[in-house]
């Protein structure tokens, strides 16, 4: 029992990332009908927003600390971040410590701007071209974005820590009446899961309860009729592209303490996120979220030693196997609408 709960928890954080990326992919596919192979790169750029934020906040200058001396007896030079200089060591130190969550502040404008630029500058010209062309051009864009990041940040993963308040682990088992230290779960992963729930909830609420969201949903169902009603649906869809990019970016920002960002992390997540979208159903937002969490949990179950000894290698292929079975038996996915790209 405890093992099962542990695996479900372990699957949640990866599942959250899949769900967030797949949600953005589905938003773009549902609104604009474009298959965006550059979405993983957006996730990666979000992660590097956190890295940039951390570097910005820890920009520092040298100061002579009169109270301390180095081993030769000279006054010690210490690096003091400007932030600490401005806000004092307590508040400033806290700001440096919280640089990853603060990365969100940087990521939102950057990602929305990038999304706009992508849609207006590139994707717009590909609506009428075949899906293969869309895949190819966004694939090329993904390579370009990835190489730009590699040029500025290098090829090695960059460690970015969570705030020290969240660095430990939480003994989840004691809450449920298990022995201590049976089910322990890092705080940050829990934060990530809750964060993803908030984002997902926010996106759904935005679509469900605002006029803007209603128009977008109407446009997803029937673009032409909405256009005939005198609504500039293209402009709203551009905004949705920016929103989808922001969702991917935020998923990336918060994921940095779990996985040190490197320039090809986007591609790694992209392949799996596409599988998630297909399993959930092309164009179905709840499907994408559901499939994201399901596949994340499934993957962590498959990597249990008991399962692995039963079917060797299952942990490596389970997601793909599920995708193949779903595609062959129920091509519209778990919650896809009938007839949406079913052939």
């Amino acid at each position: 029992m405890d093992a099962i709960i542990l695996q479900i928890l372990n699957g949640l954080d990866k599942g959250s990332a899949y769900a967030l990326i797949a949600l953005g992919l589905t938003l773009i596919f549902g609104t604009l009908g474009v298959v965006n192979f550059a979405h993983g790169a957006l996730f990666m750029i979000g992660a590097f927003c956190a890295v940039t934020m951390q570097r910005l906040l820890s920009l520092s200058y040298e100061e002579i600390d009169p109270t301390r001396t180095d081993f030769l007896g000279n006054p010690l030079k210490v690096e003091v971040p400007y932030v600490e200089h401005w806000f004092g060591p307590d508040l400033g130190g806290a700001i440096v410590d919280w640089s990853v969550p603060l990365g969100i502040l940087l990521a939102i404008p950057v990602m929305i701007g990038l999304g706009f630029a992508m849609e207006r500058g590139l994707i717009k010209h590909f609506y009428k071209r075949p899906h293969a062309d869309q895949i190819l051009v966004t694939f090329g864009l993904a390579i370009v974005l990835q190489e730009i990041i590699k040029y500025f940040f290098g090829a090695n993963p960059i460690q970015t820590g969570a705030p020290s308040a969240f660095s430990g682990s939480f003994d989840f088992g004691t809450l449920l009446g298990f022995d201590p230290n049976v089910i322990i779960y890092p705080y940050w992963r829990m934060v990530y899961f809750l964060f993803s729930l908030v984002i997902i909830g926010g996106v759904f609420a935005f679509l469900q309860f605002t006029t803007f969201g209603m128009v977008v949903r109407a446009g997803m169902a029937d673009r032409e009729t909405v256009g005939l009603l005198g609504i500039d649906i293209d402009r709203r869809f551009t905004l949705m592209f920016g929103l989808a990019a922001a969702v991917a970016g935020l998923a990336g920002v918060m994921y940095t303490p779990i996985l040190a960002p490197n320039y090809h992390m986007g591609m790694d997540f992209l392949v799996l996120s596409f599988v998630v979208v297909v399993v959930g159903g092309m164009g179905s937002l709840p499907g994408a979220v559901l499939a994201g969490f399901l596949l994340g949990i499934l993957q962590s179950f498959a990597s249990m030693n008991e399962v692995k000894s039963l079917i060797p290698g299952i942990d490596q292929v389970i997601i793909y196997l599920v995708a193949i079975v779903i595609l062959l038996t129920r091509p519209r996915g778990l919650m896809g609408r009938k007839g949406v790209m079913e052939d």
Partner: protein
Amino acid sequence: MFGLSARDTRFLLIVIALTLLTPILLQPFPEGSSLAQFNAGYPDLMQKFAIFGIFAIGFNILFGLTGYLSFGHAAFLGVGSYTVVWMYKLLGYNVLPGLLLSVVISAAFALLIGFISLRRSGIYFSILTLAFAQMSYNLAYSVLTPITNGETGLQVYASDPQILAGSGAPTSPHLFGLVMRNSAQVDLGGWVFTFNVGYYFCAVMAILAFYISLRIFRSPFGMMLRAIKTNQTRMNYTGLNSRPYTLAAFVISGMYAGLAGGLLAAMDPLAGAERMQWTASGEVVLMTILGGAGTLMGPVLGAGFIKYFENIFSKINDGILHGWFAFLPDGLEDFIVACFHPFVGKGWHLTLGILFMLVVIFLPGGLVEGMQRIWRLVRRRKSGGPKRKDPEHRPTAAPHMAE
């Protein structure tokens, strides 16, 4: 000749001549000159031209003719490589049994994967093939380690049986005693030409592959594949089951990929799982599109282009750039070098990505289309101003209602 029209025969003969003369054509700059680094006439690179040419030709039979975009062709490349290395281990360093078997085994793989994947089309097909290739890649790294030797990569050890290897047999890949890595060097003035056995072996294979693809393009089968690309629904309405045709195309292109993978191992007796990674599948997509999907020569051009860039462009570093722009004033020189810096050397992938995007956006027909456009432009110049297309005022078809 060879069952081809006169035009195609001429085309084939030109291709054969170009392939056989490659060691000379790719060595245009004399040894020791500052441009010698652009010479591509060394065996390792020429072999890659031929091998990836075969890979891309095969991919083009599927993507160029039927329009099915596979993102998992590298799996067959990997299977081919593993097969050949296993044959080295079991039988000996003769490449022939391994290559034959690699084609057969990759055909079997392609049959299995194609049978399942081709039940869907469009993006679903791409994702299915991607899923299969990633599965093979992951398995090759984990459970199949006894067969694939995992991260180390499969290689031949002294303790391997090699039952067919005689006492005097060469200890590197060979074809009945012709050792692949042997080459003859010819010094002509300042030029050094390397004629490598391995390259000529790959070249013969590439010519064969090209000939077969030419025949497929001109055959009724090829016509059928093109019809499927144009409008599969209409094909189905005429009462035709298109799946056997697409499956045949898939298996053929899988065999090409298997042969290419086998040749990779025939040149260098190693096989690693990274050959099956999806980036490798992406690379062949890049090659085909960049050169021109659906054209005969395009994929080969694309393969050559990318491999050339990968090996030559990536060698240009700041020192070389400074050498080129040394004639400029100091500040300007540094500025220009700094401008070029992100795009060359380690950053050549960036150049490739940008180039690929430009091609997809502006030249959907790839480099071949670009050349045709330039050719047409030149011809029009020569013949003096644009001619009217239809001097005889033939009646034109009415535009379709939907246009």
